[in-house]
């Protein structure tokens, strides 16, 4: 099976440790993962702000980069959702039948990390060790756009040493929402403040989620509040071992 990592633009530029963790994790599970260097971004920032024409060349770059792979794995529910549910909109907009056909090929083969581990590889115990008190925030796009369900929790439950605590109002949006965080900053911050309060109420040392963009928002608030809670991507916990 030829597997490509779509690291995502946010992780590439801001959170390379998450990408490295995915590579380590997949290699540990016997998957030889490739990083097609032509990749950039899924195009979601443009699409979700209404710039469909601008998204066309970005989506074109995406499908070219990932053509021919059996599976594209991404450590982001949001970017997987974009490839699966939004690329067709952009392709239709382009009026280019070749692009329509290409996104129909890559979209269904794009998996969020927990989906790939549980559904494609069929594993829940990845041999990780993470001796901390952790609470999990299901990000909106992984939960409602992709429907990853309890896959991340099933993976986390198998991590040795972990103490998982329930996050109150877990399924409520953290308020990130891409450019929403800037265009409606006050509302975004009000939502983030409530999410941060719920995280603090758990007494967890670590907040985990499957999207670093949401974690950057919640973590940024927690940091400003001096809450002492660290935000960590799911991939980094799953790639942690006793040696590391």
């Amino acid at each position, binding site marked *: 099976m030829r597997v490509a990592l779509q690291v995502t633009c946010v992780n590439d530029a801001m959170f390379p440790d998450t990408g490295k963790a995915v590579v380590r994790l997949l290699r540990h599970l016997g998957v030889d993962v490739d990083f097609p260097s032509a990749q950039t971004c899924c195009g979601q920032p443009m699409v979700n702000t209404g710039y469909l024409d601008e998204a066309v060349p970005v989506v074109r770059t995406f499908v070219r980069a990932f053509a021919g792979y059996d599976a594209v794995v991404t450590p982001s529910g949001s970017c997987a959702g974009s490839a699966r549910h939004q690329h067709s*909109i952009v392709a239709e907009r382009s009026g280019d039948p070749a692009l329509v056909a290409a996104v129909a090929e890559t979209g269904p083969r794009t998996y969020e990390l927990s989906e790939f581990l549980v559904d494609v590889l069929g594993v829940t115990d990845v041999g990780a060790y993470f001796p901390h008190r952790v609470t999990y925030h299901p990000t909106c796009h992984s939960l409602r756009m992709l429907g990853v369900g309890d896959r991340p929790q099933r993976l986390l439950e198998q991590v040795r040493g972990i103490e998982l605590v329930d996050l109150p109002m877990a399924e409520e949006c953290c*308020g990130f929402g891409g450019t929403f965080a800037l265009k409606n900053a006050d509302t975004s911050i009000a939502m983030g403040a409530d999410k941060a309060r719920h995280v603090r109420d758990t007494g967890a040392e670590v907040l985990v989620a499957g999207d670093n963009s949401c974690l950057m928002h919640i973590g940024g608030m927690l940091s400003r509040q001096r809450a002492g809670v660290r935000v960590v991507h799911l991939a980094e916990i799953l790639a942690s071992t006793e040696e590391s």
Partner: protein
Amino acid sequence: MSGTFVGMPAFPTAARAALGDTQLRRNLAHATQTIRDKRALVVAEVEDWEDLRLAGAGVKEAALRDLATHLETLEASLTRAGATVHWARDAAEACAIVASITHAHGADEVAKVKSMATAEIGLNEALEAEGIAAWETDLAELIVQLGDDLPSHILVPAIHRNRAEIREIFQRRMGDVGKAAPADLSDEPAVLAGAAREHLREKFLRAKVAVSGANFAVADTGTLVVVESEGNGRMCLTLPEVLVSVVGIEKVVATWADLDPMLRLLPRSSTGERMNPYTSTWSGVSPGDGPQEVHVVLLDNGRTRALADDVGRQALRCIRCSACLNVCPVYERVGGHAYGSVYPGPIGAILNPLLNGVSDEQTASLPYASSLCGACFEVCPVRIDIPSVLVDQRAAVVDSHRNDRVPSAEALAMKATAWAFSDSRRLAWAERASGIAGRVITRFSRTTLPGGRAASGRLPGPAAGWTGARDLPAPPAESFREWWDRTDGGQR
């Protein structure tokens, strides 16, 4: 008599003001949490809820896709049943029809059943200008009307008010327009409801003309349906001599049997009940029972505009249940007024631009009033994919500015970002620049995130929107891409 949404600022500005009102936020958080819990309980009782949603969406979609035929059938059925059918292209035409019917009966007042269509067309204000008083009889509408306030929720227009505020409004205002509230009025909800009963009773008993909307209009039988709780609807639909119903053309369902999924979906989604206390159905005039003169005004007012939008037309399936408002994290925090329309919340954020277009700044701000979390789609009983329509309406906003002489800063930034994202070499170059910035920030920053990573605290300029309340991690010195190249994917 009441306030107006005309001249409201765009959503971000209105939201900022609302967020500063702590009383409002407490009222909303309490109310939306209560109704969310009630809905969740009665929805969980229905084993095949998802199939019921599919059936409900199907009924409405089928009716919309052959709407002209169903409207003609409805008109014929209504006429056969003794009703008079009117057609109104816009708000002004609809209001003029209602005023003219009221004048023809020499009435200077009408009793009103709560109706979104009549709120949308500003009927009360139009009638007032014609010397006709329109009495709202739904408790929440009464609170809004007496308080010279604006509605902030589809189902419960006074959701932003708590019991103490309602008591104050009743005591101050009821006497001005009819029977005054008792001097010893308490703020117990049951006592307040009792005061509304006393106040409105004389209005129901003397009303000659009533105005309603309709939740559904059944084409093949000419039946209108009003779903309600208090009995104010029954009063208005039964006691007056003349009944005028203003019905949006999208309220049509094809057949009587089509009401089945709708009447199961609506109360559970709306008030969180297995069934609402009262549902009234009537087909034209029933000799010796109820109003003997029945008018139906079929209203367009932007609906055909929405119908022409291939992505957005699904919004016309909406049955005004409010479930999307109640679960929306944005609505919960800012309330309904910030949306500047009688249709607030997620459905308002798509319905207003679809009905009216996006040429004014306020309406154009609505599709962006969402984090696209998808909670609205999840609860919608007729499966309106609100997030997808929001994104599509954002595209409509952007497209409406494509020929602007001076592009906005946002448009320029998006074009630049898209340019960088269209070629990995450009992105790699940008990442090298950001890596340099990261090294600088890391050296000089006095903020560190838990775990030790350097971060930016409050920054000026465009970054202030983010860093006003959120620390921003410093960019890493090396991007993932550079790491992969340097180490051959970690193998060197």
